[in-house]
């Protein structure tokens, strides 16, 4: 058990290094010479060369990479070209709305999608099953921002039940927080829900045809007990796997959802950084999101042992 956890953690190190290398290359090949920009218009080539040396830009690629990585490990992601603020500082300012949005989306998606998938498998072949599956296909055929606009149009503009845009911190009360965040969370969650509901249904169908499920039914375990205790626990491994993989869609979707609903989070920071070509910020955000994604999937791997004690790699 412990050795499995240790091995999984060690195995993520090369992946993290690989991601860091990609993200660093991004800045490395980005157009524009920082030394020339700092030196200004009046500088001679010798001046530019001197500045380049003083910034360490004349060193080999790998030396610069490990130097940069060392700073990243110490929480230094560089300075924004546009605002001159440290990138970590800018991220810290914007992280709350994004974390709130993703947490709410995660809670909503899991609490709706898993029962949907279970019921679809249980009522296999009926109209309920077909309705759930159709919703799922529609769910991942519609881009997040389209769903966002449709929801905002119906519930905010037409029915006037919820605010159209904006974000309220949870510190200002749970209700205003939820009123602002519920539409973005549903819009963002629909793709994720579709993924999870589909895989839940497929795995449950598999599991429900197993002998031990029949045994459980035969010895008088109730329908709910069979579905949620015997079957769902054994269907858990593929479900948590897709929850981990689908997290990428959640991250990508958050970038867009925040633009649609004017939420001042990391997604908006990313979009603004792209429009301004603020490479250190782009780099920082991509690195952070990728790191979170790797961590989530590490968490998923560790959860396997909880659901299926047979797993020993």
């Amino acid at each position, binding site marked *: 058990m412990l050795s499995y956890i240790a091995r999984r953690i060690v195995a993520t190190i090369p992946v993290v290094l690989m991601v860091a290398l990609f993200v660093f290359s991004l800045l490395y*090949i980005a157009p524009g010479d920082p030394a020339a920009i700092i030196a200004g218009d009046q500088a001679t080539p010798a001046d530019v060369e001197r500045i380049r040396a003083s910034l360490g830009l004349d060193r080999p690629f790998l030396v610069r990479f490990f130097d940069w990585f060392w700073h990243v490990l110490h929480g230094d992601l560089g300075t924004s070209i546009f605002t001159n603020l440290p990138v970590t500082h800018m991220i810290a300012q914007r992280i709350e709305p994004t974390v709130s949005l993703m947490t709410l989306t995660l809670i909503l998606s899991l609490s709706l999608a898993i029962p949907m998938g279970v019921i679809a498998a249980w009522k296999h072949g009926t109209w309920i099953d077909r309705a759930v599956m159709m919703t799922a296909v529609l769910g991942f*055929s*519609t*881009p997040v*921002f389209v769903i966002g606009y449709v929801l905002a149009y119906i519930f905010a503009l037409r029915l006037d039940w919820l605010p159209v845009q904006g974000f309220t911190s949870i510190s200002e009360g749970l209700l205003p927080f939820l009123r602002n965040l519920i539409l973005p969370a549903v819009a963002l969650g629909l793709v994720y829900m579709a993924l999870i509901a*589909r895989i839940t249904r497929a795995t449950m169908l598999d599991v429900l045809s197993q002998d031990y499920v029949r045994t459980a039914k035969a010895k008088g375990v109730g329908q709910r007990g069979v579905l949620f205790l015997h079957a769902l626990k054994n269907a858990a491994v593929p479900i948590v796997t897709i929850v981990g993989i689908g997290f*990428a869609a959640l991250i990508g979707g958050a970038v867009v959802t925040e633009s649609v609903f004017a939420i001042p989070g990391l997604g908006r920071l*990313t979009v603004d950084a792209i429009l301004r070509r603020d490479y250190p910020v*782009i780099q920082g955000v991509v690195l952070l*999101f990728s790191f979170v994604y790797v961590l989530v999937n590490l968490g998923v791997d560790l959860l396997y042992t909880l659901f299926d004690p047979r797993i020993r790699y």
Partner: protein
Amino acid sequence: MSATTHRYAAAPDLPAILPVPKERGRIAGFIYRHPTIFVGGLLVGLMIFIAIFAPYLGTKDPTALAPARRTREPSELYWFGTDMLGRDVYSRVLYGSRVSLMVGFSVAFCASILGTFIGLIAGFVRQIDAVVMRVMDGLMSIPPILLAIALMALTRASVQNVIIAISIAEFPRVSRLVRGVVLSLREQPYVEAAIASGTKVPVIIWKHILPNTLAPLMVQATFICASAMITEATLSFIGAGTPPIIPSWGNIMAEGRALWQVKPYIVFFPAIFLSITVLAVNLLGDGLRDALDPRLAKRL
């Protein structure tokens, strides 16, 4: 009742064990067996038709500005209304199908070719397998949209660069799929026999391995096509994709954003077209997967 039965009871009819198979023509039979392929294929075909014949479908110049008649509601004259620069939304949406389809198909093609190539090498050459797959793991750890965004930030906005960026974000999944297939095929007796009889590796790959990767590859390519269309629209929507001068569905929506609370139709028409196209491609992929893998067909 019993008296009447008696009269004919000498030779009772054989019970119908199997229902008589319904006579269906070849096409009707295909539609009955694979309704999703049919519906998806029909809709994709319709979109391709629209993309090719956009100039002949009652469209005007999609980039022609006419400030005097801006933001007109949909009417007989302007079926989908006009945008804030007076451009005809109907024409823009129809021409926009060209960008989406081109990006979708090109990415599916490029990512499949590149992914297959790398997957074949990784699956066949043990020495570099670990290194190549770690690189793929690294690429796959960056959420695809973010990777595409980051790549687009490096280059000039153009349709070609959008295709390259999305292909790079998508191909690692293909390479992993192909590698998996290759690894399981290598152990097959007929491949071992081919190796033992001294067949050259390229011939083995071309004749024995590649044909067997085609089915899962085709299914994967359809899903990549669908996801590439969404990614293109997303990139354009946030201003990092197709250049604004080209009417693409993402661009029309991005431009309609500022006005969407008062003139929602500018955003909704391209949104409907995009969703239907992606849905069609996804249905096609679902249908292909079911048709090519009958074991899964019963479940999904």
